[in-house]
């Protein structure tokens, strides 16, 4: 039982922090990125080495773990950076690392690690909530390949993706090149201003080599848990930045002849936000450690506990920050709203607090409920 961070951890954290401070100016945090800015930032994040952090050294990555991903995600969360990486590209690469064929890995992973290719995760379907169901996207074997039909929704970074990891058929995962005839993307932005899209496969034919053999729902769930852990870390960074932002505002805004921060009722709100923050940080660590666990039940229980804790903290701190900014907090100009919206997106992604509470209870019944 030890949460200590090493010197290498701190060095990584500080490097990402320094990068984010320069790349994402505070007064613009959360603004929707034009395609050119998005592309240049992607190249810069690649240069920093983020995309290869957890990719094996055999494929030109750094071979690190979910803990290093957590540290990077926290820093991105502070400045609302990172685009679609954590929610989409990270779990797609995870699936390839865990279950991809050698040829698939050597084709994609080295290029992903340096930011030259993007692979997005396309798993969600219309009508689903958070449990993985049998996909309505069909996969019919044809000659030596597969014929795919159906639509995947809310795929982060769909417009910029070179390929998709698609769940289809009874229980299969495929890599689908974005240029495949029959693949189209309906692009839109999610409420945090980030690019996403619905991906339609209309008679898209892929080769037999596109099937990720041996990968099914269990691997997909592991990838989603892995990304959920990273999103927990991202949210924690955003919560921390939002507390700082809001406290700074309370120190400068004067009403009734004094700075708002002099009012005790507002001071107590700060104390509660700080308590939420510290617990979120702890559970982000727990989620990162659980993300690497081979025990699916233990992993589910701990990651769900983290998502509940951080989901509730994110909702409370987001609402509090808007309230503390008063009418300013309702404007698009004010950064509080941008943070609150990103936190809202994270909460609705891969399961909200209510969903994860139920999932936790289900897995509680199977475990003994004690960490020891």
């Amino acid at each position: 039982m030890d949460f200590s961070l090493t010197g290498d951890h701190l060095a990584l954290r500080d490097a990402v922090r320094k990068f984010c401070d320069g790349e994402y100016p505070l007064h613009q945090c959360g603004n929707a990125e034009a395609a050119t800015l998005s592309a240049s930032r992607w190249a810069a994040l690649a240069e920093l080495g983020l995309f290869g952090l957890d990719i094996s050294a055999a494929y030109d990555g750094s071979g690190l773990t979910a803990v290093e991903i957590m540290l990077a995600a926290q820093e991105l969360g502070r400045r609302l950076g990172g685009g679609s990486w954590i929610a989409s590209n990270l779990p797609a690469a995870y699936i390839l690392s865990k279950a991809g064929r050698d040829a698939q890995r050597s084709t994609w992973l080295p290029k992903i690690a340096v930011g030259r290719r993007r692979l997005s995760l396309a798993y969600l379907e219309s009508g689903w909530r958070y449990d993985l169901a049998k996909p309505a996207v069909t996969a019919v074997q044809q000659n030596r390949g597969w014929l795919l039909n159906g639509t995947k929704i809310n795929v982060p970074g769909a417009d910029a993706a070179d390929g998709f990891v698609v769940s289809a058929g009874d229980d299969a995962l495929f890599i689908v090149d974005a240029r495949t005839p029959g693949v189209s993307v309906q692009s839109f932005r999610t409420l945090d201003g980030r690019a996403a899209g619905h991906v339609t496969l209309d008679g898209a034919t892929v080769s037999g080599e596109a099937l990720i053999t041996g990968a099914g729902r269990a691997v997909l769930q592991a990838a989603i848990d892995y990304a959920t852990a990273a999103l927990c870390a991202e949210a924690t960074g955003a919560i921390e930045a939002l507390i700082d932002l809001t406290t700074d505002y309370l120190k400068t805004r004067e009403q009734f002849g004094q700075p708002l921060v002099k009012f005790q009722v507002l001071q107590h709100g700060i104390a509660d936000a700080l308590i939420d923050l510290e617990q979120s940080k702890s559970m982000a660590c727990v989620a990162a450690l659980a993300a690497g666990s081979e025990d699916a039940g233990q992993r589910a229980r701990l990651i769900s506990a983290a998502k509940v804790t951080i989901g509730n903290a994110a909702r409370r701190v987001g609402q509090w920050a808007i309230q503390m900014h008063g009418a300013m907090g309702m404007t698009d100009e004010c950064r509080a709203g941008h943070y609150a919206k990103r936190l809202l997106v994270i909460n609705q992604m891969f399961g909200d607090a209510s969903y994860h509470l139920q999932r936790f209870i289900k897995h509680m019944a199977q475990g003994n409920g004690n960490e020891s």
Partner: protein
Amino acid sequence: MKLEFSAEDEAFRLEVRSFVRDHLPAWLKRKVELGLRLERADYVAWYERLYERGWSAPSWPKEYGGPGWTPLQRYIFDEEALLGGAPRIIASGILMLGPVLMAVGTQEQKARYLPAIRRSETWWAQGFSEPGAGSDLAQVRTTAVRDGDHFIVNGHKLWTSYAHFCDMLFCLVRTESSSKPQNGITFMLIDMKTPGITVRPIRMIDGGNDLNEIYLDNVRVPAENVVGELNKGWSYGKYLLGHERTGIAGIGSSKQQIARVRALAQAHGLADDPALAARLGALEIQLMALEFTGLRMLSKNQESRVPSVEASMLKVRGTELRQEIYELLLEVAGPGALPFDEAALRGDQGLVPPVAPPDLMSLAANYLDSRKITIYGGTSEVQRNLISKAFLTA
């Protein structure tokens, strides 16, 4: 970083678990698990066994006869002892006075008082609060006036836990009037048998009388009973209330009471109730988040935004969480919580036949008693003041 305990810590956990299983008297375990009132003899029955094993002062370093455990070992001990049905360690001697004497006591004071605390021969009461000095503790008005090699103490202390079965009192008294109320307070030790001391138990909301008021009327206290420097008592009192991080979240107690919720739900047909399961699940998660936060704060390079008030954060969250668990216990009791039988709560033969199932009848009293934990040791409101002040001035 790793979630697993080391093999050494796991071995230690098993050692504590089997010790508790083999040495905790069954009658005492039953009293604790039923939430009945405990007297000095009950606590002593357990502490004596801990003493024989060398574990009666879990937080003390070896040089003072403690086991010299790491914070993690103390945490494991606390959890295993409480989950095993042992009474908690009463704070005043071991957790409060002990560390102050170790920090600023004279050699003579240490030699005289520390071993007797460890052997649970001397029981200490804490005399801080007064009628006009609650959260604003610096307003103490009990005076101590020098008279040769003695002080003459006059005043009125309030909310003194267990004073009715304590031998000694450590208290804050005013030895100098000052424009700043924190100055001029002295930390002093008083023998409860000294003439001029009257203890009056206060009947509390749960029917118990663990709290008392103490009247001090021309009580003569030897000057050697001053701890640390004269007029500097405020800083020692603050040290005593704020230095403890390991146990303050009450994780072991919370786990003990959550286990009680589960057992009662099972016994009373509520095991499949979805609303109860949802609330219990939510509390389990909150407890986990708090537990890992306590453990994280012990780890290297994981200091919080406001390290100086980590104890306050853990206290606020830990006590509020524990109160929620007691609320849930009360709900589980349902109508069984209504009958109230003083004798049965003491563990004596109550009304015959019993007026409520024995496992339910203490729950209302326990719930009411639990309201104190966000009041004592610095109210939640005072703690929130401390947390925000530390953050805003950092």
